[in-house]
């Protein structure tokens, strides 16, 4: 697991639903690059063209609300988004993200302390975000069971390891 990452900020508001992240009309596709192309299309039709690998999505409350569609975090991950930081997440989106090894971080208040395009650094081990001013904003650490899934690289690897009786 990458524990320190830097990227440009893309800002979103409250209640960004799975319908915003990847619309129902694309769910027939099993290919992650097709999903990536249409990520966030219902908010910004050109989002996928503007994003660079490593960019960071920053939002307010209830990010990923709505459907259980795992295509939502898959689309963002395949687009090269390195992590989503929000005040709070909807639970299924949060679990789905962790399960595919995609970083999601609850850091209340960050959304209002950054501007679109700002370069920020996330330090997962230290549990803080470094703002452009050099100030840091702390976030609560992952509980051990979630950290174990992320460290294994996702739930499939974690379950495989557990079944094989190895310590991860």
């Amino acid at each position, binding site marked *: 697991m990458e524990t320190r990452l830097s990227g440009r900020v893309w800002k979103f508001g409250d209640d960004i639903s799975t319908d915003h992240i990847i619309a*129902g009309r694309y769910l027939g596709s099993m290919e992650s690059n097709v999903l990536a192309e249409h990520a966030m299309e219902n908010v910004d039709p050109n989002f996928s063209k503007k994003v660079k690998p490593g960019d960071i999505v920053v939002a307010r409350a209830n990010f990923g609300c709505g459907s259980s569609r795992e*295509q939502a975090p898959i689309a963002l991950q395949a687009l090269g988004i390195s992590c989503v930081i929000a005040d709070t997440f*909807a639970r299924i989106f949060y*679990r*789905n993200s962790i399960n595919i090894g995609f970083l999601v971080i609850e850091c209340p208040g960050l959304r209002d302390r950054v501007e679109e395009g700002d370069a920020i650094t996330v330090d997962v081990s230290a549990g803080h975000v470094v703002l452009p001013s050099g100030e840091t904003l702390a976030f609560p650490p992952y509980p051990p069971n979630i950290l174990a899934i992320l460290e294994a690289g996702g*739930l499939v690897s974690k379950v*495989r390891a557990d079944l094989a009786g190895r310590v991860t």
Partner: protein
Amino acid sequence: MAEKILARASGSESVRPGQIVDGQVDLLYMHEMLALAIKPFEEIGVGKVWDPAKCVVTVDHWVPPPNEQIARMHQSIREFCWAQGIERFHDVGDHGIIHQLVVERGYVHPGELVIGCDSHTNMAGAMGAFAAGIGATETAAVLATGKLWLKVPESLRVQVRGTLSRRTGAKDVILKVIQTTGDDGAAYKAVEFHGATIQAFPMNERFVLSNMTTEMGAKAGMLPSDDTTRTYLEEVGAGDAFRPVDSDPNARFLKTYDIDVDGMGPQVACPNNPANVKPIEDVIGTKIDMAFVGSCTNARIQDLRATAEILKGEMIAPRVRMIVTPASQGIYRQAVKEGLAQIFLESGATFTSSTCGPCFGGHMGVLAPKEVCISSTNRNYPGRMGSPEAQVYLASPYTVAASALYGEITDPRGL
């Protein structure tokens, strides 16, 4: 209730909110999301599903398949079920929207831990079960192990009293509740419904309540199991599985919402959030292009009867399309038998076989830009039913049908 069920599922004396438990899954149910779970399941490498007798599979999002891509998806699901010996696989023709199918076939029982790969799995909680939704990778893990980690949620109590106005029901009540809590007011929490109004609701109405706890952000939504639950289970051939499940009289809740619905009339969730709810008086006269009665939320036989009660002998308004899509093929057959299908067709509505299709903008009734739809479904975020420029109002089947007749949002009580 959540703590009791999760204690049993994790083999513990008792559990408390915040604790992380490994739950043994009593029922795992799946729709097309299974197609996405097959690869991670194979990667886990166990070969066989932990217990095929505890799995239920159907196809519901795109039925019958509208294109080759979906046909291939269905094919992979079919082959997986056959190879794994999953006998409760309900293929096209025998299908239904999964949440409806699992209750009407008697697969969900009080006190069980029920996991489904869809956000509206909460609906099964109306049977007195703990029912929560997951995604594809986690579905693969449950298929392999039969277990799922869960953080024991805090519980919220929604206490509802009062007698509703005419042609006003559970949909109007749950919209009022969502307005009160917000669309994330129950995030990570379990919601329990209590009170005289709730106890008087038949099962079909109770399903609407638990179903839309998803739109409160809830992990699970549940009702105590009682005589109504028992009778329902007997009707679907699972009477032996009844057991009473309720919270203790001294149970602690994080918060209690007391909601008085005495004399309350129809409610409507306005674009673009299910919590943007207004009494119907505030939106009467809003022009519509499409009216849809369908989805796991409100397309049971009672909803179709309500729709037919309004449409009977009338024609829907010019320049309005109406689509009626039952929640299962069982309901479809019943609607034909009772003559409801004839009423829909004679009024100018389209009556389709069961699918989730229009509710999530998949097929069979997708909205164009600028179109306005009134719908008996559950979500109205931008782009939910098609174009992000379309607008969706959520309401009861009564309100949807009345609006279809007049081409604008209409109070069904005046008809």
